């Protein structure tokens, strides 16, 4: 065999080939197809016609899409605040106790390993108007939760987000806890001598010290909330009357119920650009030495 085929450099490429091949085949190639298909009006069967940017123009007129984008923004903001605050507080409290730490950690983390479908079934039952909490209140003669929050326009999105947050926040606790345990104890001891309160210690020692991991958790939340799908699809299918429709759900119904291949690809491309901009933004921040 010629030498350049057996050199260590060549061999190391052979070892990489399977992973590149399978990943390209499943992710990269269809992604490129999507980037091309978004310029067509293909419906999956007939001729493929090039339509330029028409799909994008239509997308910006699409009422449901606008609604879905709005819901995704609300979703992201909710996830950036509620679970983050709860997890920060809980992680901080956990660092202060000795007994039962492992128990708490296991309990908080547990829903994160459960399947989305299981979590949804639990909460669909609890929020069920005639069973669950609603039924329990009814038995006590109290008219509360008489209608499922998943079935009401005003609450559907928040109820779905509640279930997803319930499953997610324990994950953040563990992430913050790892960061907090890396903080040098001597800092807290010095603060104790100065007579700092618990809140001051949190504000002036813990928070600045865990900043890298904290910023990272925010990026993860922003990126993960873009393709959010399972909980919405299982619990409400985006309804009632699109009141909990999110972008991924809109794409899914365009793609697999209406077979609007070109249009669905356009939505996918928009999601990809959005994620790309966010990743790029943080990459630039990091380049500029803004330690995140």
């Amino acid at each position, binding site marked *: 065999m010629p030498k350049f085929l057996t050199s260590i450099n060549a061999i190391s490429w052979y070892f990489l080939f399977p*992973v590149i091949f399978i990943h390209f085949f499943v*992710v990269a190639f*269809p992604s490129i197809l999507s980037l091309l298909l978004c310029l067509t009006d293909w419906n999956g069967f007939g001729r493929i016609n090039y339509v330029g940017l028409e799909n994008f123009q239509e997308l910006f007129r699409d009422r449901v899409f606008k609604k879905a984008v709005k819901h995704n923004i609300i979703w992201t903001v909710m996830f950036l605040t509620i679970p983050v605050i709860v997890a920060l507080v809980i992680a901080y409290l956990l660092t202060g106790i000795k007994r039962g730490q492992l128990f708490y950690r296991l309990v908080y983390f547990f829903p994160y*390993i459960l399947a989305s*479908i299981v979590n949804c079934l639990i909460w669909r039952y609890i929020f069920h108007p005639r*069973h669950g909490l609603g039924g329990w209140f009814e038995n006590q003669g109290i008219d509360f939760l008489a209608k499922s929050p998943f079935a009401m326009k005003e609450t559907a999105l928040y109820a779905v987000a509640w279930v997803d947050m*319930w499953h997610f926040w324990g994950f953040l606790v563990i992430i913050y806890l790892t960061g907090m345990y890396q903080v040098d104890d001597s800092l807290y001891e010095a603060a104790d001598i100065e007579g700092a309160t618990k809140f001051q210690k949190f504000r002036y020692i813990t928070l600045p010290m865990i900043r890298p991991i904290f910023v990272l958790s925010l990026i993860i939340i922003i990126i993960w909330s873009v*393709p959010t799908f399972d909980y919405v699809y299982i619990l409400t299918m985006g309804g009632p009357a699109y009141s909990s429709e999110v972008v991924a759900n809109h794409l899914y119904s365009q793609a697999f119920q209406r077979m609007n291949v070109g249009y669905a690809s356009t939505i996918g491309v928009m999601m990809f650009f959005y994620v790309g901009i966010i990743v790029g933004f943080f990459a630039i921040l990091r380049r500029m030495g803004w330690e995140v």
Partner: protein
Amino acid sequence: MATARFRQRSSYINHAILIFMALTIILPLLVLAFNSIKPSSEFGANPLGFPNEIRLMNYYDAWVNGNYTQIFTNSLTLVIGTLILNLTVSGLAAFSLAVLNPKGIQTIVVGLYLLVGISIPAQLFILPLFLMWKTLYLLDTRIGLIIIYSALNAPFATFLIRSYMLQLPTELFEAAKLDGASVMQLFTRVALPLSWPVFLTTALIVSLTVWNEFLFAITFIITDEYKPISSILFTFQSRFANDYGLVSAASILMAAPIAILFMFFQRRFIAGLTSGATKG
């Protein structure tokens, strides 16, 4: 003295908050557990509490009416198939990046490629992939889904295994080379036996994601006979909509294997899942 008492009181408050938050997780899970052993006649009068009459037959009904033997086999096939394919390709790649040529251009190129791969939302490629799978006759087959799952988990697995292999002492590989070991032997005889802990962690996380996966499962498997547990449970909620005992038992049957594995390997699960997010 005063501060000591203050400390103690504040620690009670800490525990009170922590227990309250733990209850918000435990109570809903308990409701599910109670429901799974509750006869359907009792749901109206006793929606949340422990059943007056325990009915374990719900599990039997779920198993038989839901055809769970078949479904468990399907899910298990997906998990095992994905583990074999995914760990093979990721292990080879990680070995190459960490041991064979850690300073080569490959690390940058492949590393960047996989990083971009992670940040692509599945929705960008799911429809073209669906059409590709249709033309390749991979749609509605378990092997088709195994290929997808292996690819989706490959970046995470490669990074995790690589970071472990980087810590292996290079002297071991040098010594094996002097003894005349081939590159493949370096992989199978030196790298693999030494990195079993990271393979175990990766295997646990991959099993978890495959077992729980929903989007690709409902999209790529159409025939009921081949459906894995997550998508069958989704059809259950409409098929047995009012039979909460049966649906709850079916949910617990789905969660049980994961919960048991979690109890045994909690540290690995937690470390693997959090490192997947913070390093990937």
